[in-house]
């Protein structure tokens, strides 16, 4: 029997679902600073929404606290601005309770790696079908510039005037270690690539984690310039593409080989190596994903961008539903009166 909730949410959509990106722009001003990397996330997200092929009332964005936390206000779908660090937990409950929705999380490096770190790792292993976009600006921006769990050692911030002493998290490796099925990384300067990553995340049935290096031009300007600026990017980053060798460099003249477990940069021009010697990316290979994830802070290799891993595994919400379906199929739909009466009752006449 349908519940009242099921009844109201299963009403057919009236009209078209052939949306334009502008259909997802609500009638409010975006309040991020001019030049904030956040805009570079917002626009590809709005661009992929029409491609989801679902009515927009079936989409929900959940956020925590931070500059990234404002994201839901800038999407004309259902939005819930939660509390610091808890977006994944809130989104998990929403998705488990409402598997018909497409559920997204916008979070920050502080929100997701510090106060929300526990929910993040458990989100990764549980594999609820939600898409988590982490605005990594390597600083706490909303609170005006303290170091974050992804700030690099020695980083000067308002709360580390003499340099941060902590080692940073490597978010991609953390996600992989915690069992996330979909782990990707992009940069704000490459919106087209972000759009691709978001499309893939949306298509992935399970927990998707996309780390986006996002410039905060107020509190940590240029944090990623050393490898994202136009003139250095091709030499300092490498794109992970499924089934393709790891080639990089302005002239596509360098590649990555694997030496034992160690990735190593080789030249394709000195005659020693050819493309065939290079490491070929495989999104389904979780051992490889660990090696690639660990390249992040390795100064001898380029910074990997793209999809580290995309594995298919039953999502938590599907498993919950499957358990319910199995119980109902084998035992019949539960009868509340029988449950209340139980097995050891007696009647007083």
């Amino acid at each position, binding site marked *: 029997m349908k519940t009242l*909730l099921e009844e109201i949410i299963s009403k057919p959509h009236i009209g078209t679902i052939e949306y334009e990106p502008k259909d997802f722009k609500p009638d409010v001003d975006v309040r991020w600073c001019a030049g904030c990397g956040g805009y570079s996330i917002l626009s590809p997200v709005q661009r992929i929404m029409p491609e989801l092929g679902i009515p927009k009332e079936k989409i929900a964005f959940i956020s925590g606290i931070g500059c990234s936390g404002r994201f839901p206000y800038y999407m004309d779908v259902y939005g819930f601005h939660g509390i610091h660090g808890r977006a994944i937990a809130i989104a998990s409950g929403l998705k488990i*309770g409402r598997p018909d929705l497409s559920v997204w999380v916008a979070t920050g490096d502080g929100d997701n790696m510090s106060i929300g770190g526990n929910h993040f790792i458990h989100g990764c292993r549980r594999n609820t079908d939600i898409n988590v976009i982490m605005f990594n600006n390597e600083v706490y921006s909303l609170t005006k510039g303290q170091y974050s769990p992804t700030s690099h050692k020695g980083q000067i911030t308002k709360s580390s005037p003499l340099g941060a002493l902590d080692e940073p998290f490597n978010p991609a490796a953390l996600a992989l270690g915690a069992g996330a099925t979909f782990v990707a990384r992009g940069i704000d300067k490459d919106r087209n690539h972000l759009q691709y990553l978001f499309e893939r995340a949306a298509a992935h049935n399970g927990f998707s984690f996309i780390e986006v290096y996002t410039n905060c031009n107020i509190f940590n300007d240029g944090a990623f310039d050393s490898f994202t600026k136009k003139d250095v990017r091709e030499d300092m980053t490498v794109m992970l593409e499924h089934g393709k060798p790891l080639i990089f460099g302005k002239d596509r003249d360098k590649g990555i080989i694997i030496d034992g477990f160690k990735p190593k940069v080789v030249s394709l021009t000195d005659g020693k190596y050819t493309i065939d010697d290079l490491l070929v990316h495989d999104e389904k290979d979780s051992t490889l994903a660990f090696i690639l994830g660990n390249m992040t802070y390795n100064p001898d290799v380029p910074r990997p961008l793209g999809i580290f891993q995309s594995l298919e595994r039953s999502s938590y919400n599907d498993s919950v539903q499957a358990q319910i379906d199995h119980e109902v199929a084998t035992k019949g*739909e539960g009868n509340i009166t029988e449950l209340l009466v139980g097995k050891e009752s007696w009647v007083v006449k």
Partner: protein
Amino acid sequence: MEKEIIYLDEITVRFAGDSGDGMQLAGKQFSDTSASSGVDVNTFPDFPSEIRAPEGTLYGVSAFQIKLGSSSVNTHGDEIDLLVAMNASSLKVNVNNLKVGGIIIANIEGFDSRNLKLAKYTSNPLEDGSLKKFNVIALDIEAIIKEELKGSGISPKIVKKSKNFFALGITYWLFNRPMEPTVKWLNAKFKKDADVLEANIRVLNAGWNYALKNEAFKKQYTLQPAKFEKGTYRNISGNHAVALGLVTASKKANIPLFLGTYPITPATDILQYISGYKKYGIRHLQAEDEIAGIASAIGASYGGNLAATTTSGPGLSLKIEAIGLAVMTELPLVIVDVMRAGPSTGLPTKPEQSDLFQAMYGRHGEAPLPVLAAASAADCFAMTIEAARLALKYMTPVILLTDGYIAQGTEPWRIPELSELPDLTPNFATDPEGFAPYIRDPETLARMWAVPGMQGMEHRIGGLEKQNITGAVSHDPENHQKMVEIRQEKIDRIARDIPNLEIMGNADAELLIIGWGSTYGAIKSAVDAKTKEGVKVAYVHLKHLNPFPSNLGDVISKYKTILVPEMNLGQLRTILHSKFLVPIIGMNKVQGIPFKTSEIKAKIDELLSEKEAVI
């Protein structure tokens, strides 16, 4: 042999032994059997916080106490009439609660030199005359069982494990209870294990026959059935009742139930019960911590589920920030706090009522919400329904307080027909025409429940202050003042929607007792007893602590002396003080054990005699 039959009105039995002795099981069988044969029962399991404390030790004693009565039984009994003591330690920790003339059934094997040493006895109490005040029946249970099962081929290991059924058989004889319910239970339990089944049934019968034939057992006790309202009954614990209450509330609201929670004693049972209810379409998440428990519940509530989170004091502390979010977003949520003795880890398996302040005030900002408290194990069902009713009708988180005493203790519960329960259908927003997320019902001030999935109503809500009606983020000073006041007013108005207090005992008294939560049993028993004696004492019991029932002020103003017994240092008393500005006497017990009826009676006597002395 002639046996004397004695008719009693009430009796208290306590089974005590090592964790491995199966005393909880024996106790539960005894109480279920007694209840189903028509007497009123109230039970309390009392076990150590260690899972398997070392055998024979004083701190490892596990006990189960049952009070039976042929009229209403509200507590598990002050003093024990019959103690089953499987070893020396279980005698030692319980003997002080034994009535003079009470019966001790002692298992001799548990009184060997090793056990005596562990119990810190210098001589054997079964032999040194120290138990003269009691009627001691010492027997070597294992030897008797062995004799009884001779030639049956049943292994000694099974024999050792069936000692509790022997003790149970004896108690069944002593109180003339039927054995069929336990035999039926054994049949279901050991369907696949014929040896164990046969052994246990034979041992149970052996216990009965032993008592029947043995001269040490001269008297058999009988209780008349209690007068119960017509209906179907079962024995239920508070935690079980909360679990059933949540499922039933979701049925009455016709929306799915979601429980997001994290295990903590003494609330864990609720999660365990609910996790088995999948065929009722129930979803639950055993989250990574309490914060994720409530946050996931808020997410589910945002999605239109009846959402709940269950915990005890330390967990409630962790949930508090998120409760503020539910207050701000005005989403329905049932929060159950099964209180235990604190602060910090405190006495984790022992009850206390010391989370009242936390429930009432433990939030940042002005964040009012309804606070309820269940009075007994069976009342946990009704109060869970009430919590869901208020949450859904007023779009608010609600805290329901129970405690370790009623959560684990049991009593007969009349199972209601679904039609007797209130309709809980929520007010979903379904019409996009003129929709705004914070439009309010003029009567209740509740907003409508606008859930994702509804076309044309896409909107954003969150923890930031919002413009009334539109729900848009607003930092406007006047608007904030208005919104804070509206949220308060919404909760205050609930007073119109809850029953007035009924005065129990003798309304025409000078002394009024105000109780709340699990102290109901002890206070009610004391007030009933005093009333029978012709002593004038009035009693009201609060189930709604925020807001209070509308007539509380009136009631309070009519009495000269007001007594508030509670298992804390005066939390309700302080709240009543500040609200009604009248002197109130506190009676405060924080020992991890519930009040005894006798303690309340003594306090009544003391207060009334002081009065005379003044006159």
